[in-house]
């Protein structure tokens, strides 16, 4: 089994990708067999730093209903089954809203007139390739899910991306920000969830929400405090009270921001940052291997 480490964050902009990519590249420098999966499907940006060569791209689709009006007897069973308003009965008509459909297949099953068939609707892509070949920080197997613009079914793309996981080595999952279904789909079953936060009141609030979700999922969690010198003590105190281990505190560094904006691999560009990341790897192994 691969060891799955999900890097998550209650909100965007905490440096989640920087930490995730940094961890992947530092782990790859120690031992081969690292996979990085970008599950932040609405805005995957790990590729900006890992600059992978993509060798395969596959469409992810959701089976959505199409109604044959000649067979439909307007019984209304489909609309009352669907929780998502993706199929709706209005007077004697059946309306479908494919973008809302989760592809559960329920409506076609409950249609006794067999008026509903399913057709695949492409909502995103999974791309796979290799990053940093011939680099001391590589090679890293690269996977990225990408949700099509305006599509809503992020979880389908995330699950498809996670299916690309190898059966050995270490897999770093870059989870989408927040604590909703998409984050759950990306972290579920992980051996460890690293919650990246900032020591600000907003950071703390989002961290608490994320911690609650992760605990409901029953996943082991630890915290990385990024830009650890910009705020106050409350995040540290909260972690103590909750028994959450802080694996690293990474001070704000202009060099990191600069390297980020240039799309450079930060572990190469900023040695101090690389050191902090490297520093938490032994403890991560201890945590995931129990």
């Amino acid at each position, binding site marked *: 089994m691969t060891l799955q480490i999900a890097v998550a964050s209650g909100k965007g902009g905490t440096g989640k990708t920087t930490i995730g990519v940094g961890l992947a590249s530092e782990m790859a420098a120690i031992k081969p067999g690292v996979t990085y999966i970008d599950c932040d499907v609405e805005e995957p940006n790990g590729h900006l730093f890992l600059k992978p060569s993509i060798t395969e791209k596959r469409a992810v689709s959701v089976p959505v209903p199409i109604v044959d009006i000649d067979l439909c007897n307007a019984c209304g069973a489909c609309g009352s089954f669907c929780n*998502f308003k993706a199929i709706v009965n*209005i007077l004697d008509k059946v309306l479908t809203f494919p973008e*809302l459909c989760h592809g559960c297949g329920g409506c076609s099953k409950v249609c006794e007139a067999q008026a509903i068939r399913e057709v695949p609707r492409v909502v995103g892509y999974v791309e796979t390739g290799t990053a940093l070949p011939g680099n001391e920080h590589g090679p890293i197997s690269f996977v990225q899910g990408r949700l099509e613009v305006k599509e809503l079914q992020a979880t389908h793309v995330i699950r498809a991306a996670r299916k690309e996981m190898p059966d050995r080595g270490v897999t770093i999952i870059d989870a989408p920000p927040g604590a909703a279904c998409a984050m759950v789909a990306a972290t579920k079953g992980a051996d460890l969830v690293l919650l990246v936060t900032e020591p600000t009141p907003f950071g703390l609030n989002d961290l608490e929400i994320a911690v609650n979700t992760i605990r409901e999922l029953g996943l082991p969690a630890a915290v990385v405090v990024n830009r650890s010198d910009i705020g106050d003590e409350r995040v540290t105190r909260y972690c103590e009270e909750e028994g959450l281990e802080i694996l690293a505190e990474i001070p704000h560094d202009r060099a990191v921001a600069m390297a980020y904006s240039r799309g450079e691999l930060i572990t190469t560009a900023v040695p101090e940052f690389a050191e902090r990341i490297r520093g938490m790897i032994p403890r991560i192994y201890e945590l995931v291997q129990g």
Partner: protein
Amino acid sequence: MKIAVTSSGATEESAIDERFGRAKYFIIHDTESGESHTIDNESNLNLQQGAGIQAAEIVLSEGAGVVLTGHCGPKAFKTLKAAGIEIIIGCSGTVKTMIDSYKQGDLKPVDAPDVDMHW
């Protein structure tokens, strides 16, 4: 005929709520009896998706023939159209003035949605 108006408050004196799916209230006015009643749209406000569709279903179940609102998105539009309900957008001011304008024939229904998502 019944008119459904999206409202920010529970009475005809309230200002129009420009949103359709996420309107606070619907005021249903019966032009024959001159009477109105109010529907709280609270449960719909929290829907992540499909609020416009559900709002259209509510309006249909109230037997309204026309909706007066500020904006209407594509999903609500499609549902209202299928229900044969006319849609008047661009309304502002109080619910009462809009109902009066409608009765005087000053308002014309539209045949396309005017906003993209999340109304």
